[in-house]
């Protein structure tokens, strides 16, 4: 089954896991399976069912925006990477 690498800022919502194994034949189905397994992650990735614009998903080195987006086909060897938007610096957040 395909794997998704979870970046550090999102790991608190997936029990600290670096990788999550998912099912699905497209990127969109894989992400839906991911948030089905970890519902707390959903608001971080989706807004009204749409992938949030600051969420970057890559297959290997390629941005899915320049493939077929969430419709991009995947197979069981696919490694998906979510790239977070991070601002630090100092990370003096609350």
């Amino acid at each position, binding site marked *: 089954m395909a794997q998704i690498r979870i970046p550090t*800022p999102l790991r608190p919502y997936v029990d600290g896991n670096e990788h999550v194994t998912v099912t699905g034949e497209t990127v969109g189905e894989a992400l839906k399976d991911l948030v089905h397994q970890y519902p707390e992650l959903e608001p971080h990735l989706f807004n009204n069912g749409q992938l949030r614009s600051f969420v*970057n998903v890559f297959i290997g080195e390629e941005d899915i925006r320049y493939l077929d987006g969430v419709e991009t086909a995947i197979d069981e060897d696919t490694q998906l*990477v979510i790239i977070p*938007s991070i*601002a630090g610096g100092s*990370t003096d957040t*609350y």
Partner: protein
Amino acid sequence: MSVREHVAPEAIELSHEEIKRYSRHLIMPEVGMKGQRKLKAASVLLVGTGGLGSPLGMYLAAAGVGRIGLVDYDVVDESNLQRQIIHGTRDVGRPKLESAKERMLDINPHIQIDTYETLLTSENALEILEPYDVIVDGTDNFPTRYLVNDACVLLGKPNVYGSIFRFEGQASVFDASQGPCYRCLFPEPPPPGLVPSCAEGGVLGVLPGTIGAIQATETIKIILGIGETLVGRLLLYDALKMSFSFVKLRKNPECPVCGEHPTLTELIDYEQFCGMPAHDQTAFASEAEELVPTISVEEVKAKLEAGEDFILLDVREPHEWEIVDLDVATHHIPKGQVLEHLGELDTAREIIVYCKMGGRSADVVRLLREHGYTRVKNMAGGINEWAARIDPRLPIY
């Protein structure tokens, strides 16, 4: 602050002292006298003199970049010293610009340092960035990152990007004249509620050293015109895995600032765009706190002394309890587990919630009120405020 006119590298002379100083550059054909003159003729603006700005400032000074501008408004705090190595213990309380400038001129007195003791804002950004060849983004917040990006695109300047979080770092070179900009990758910031709190925050002290050194390398390559820069690539660094990986970045034809039909042709209000303040996350936390019932640390102390019955609920993470804990009976439930432990909290009793600084506890107060708890209050300023005003024996972190 004084700005030198741009000088052609050919017109730049290197003194005997400088030739000796830069000899390890000069003996490499990729740099040589020609390259070292380019470095001396070049100007670089560092936005931020913190974690990323520290190695950047020191290495760019040492390399002989002729004019380096520094933008910062902050003063050195003890909690900076774990990673901001341009500042020392004796600098605590001094403006960062002063201590950074002093350190850089100690490394290399043959360069010019311009200082801008201000927040970078939409009003001053174009004027501050304009006189520099390369802009380096060493900021720590989303509004300033979008501001730096947009100003660089509008002025046609390369933006050397670096960002860090815990054990992970990112770096790239955004140069809209040759490739994508920051907005092509991140069209908009995460909403404020999804920005990590300090429970998820923190940073390995060496991490900004690694990423800042990469930014310094890219800056020098841009000035020298050698090698392949990170234009069109995003470097992803994982310190725990000790892995470097890359992804391809493309220019988004629909990018609002660098796309084919830009809609953003002047700087905007970036705090409004990001829904968060640019300069002080604690101010944002205070705003969040104001929306829920609060109680001061003095009032909590008075209630304890009066022997009043209430639950004092600490919602920090277990590893934070080890840093410091109140020496009064408290109930510990990490913020993320409060809902699972509602059974332990009696709705009839008064509950006072605290965390490190008051942000997470405000969220928990809101959550409890949604679940029918009416006698619940947030201890303003958290355990750090308690340590500052009630019990100076406790450390502040």
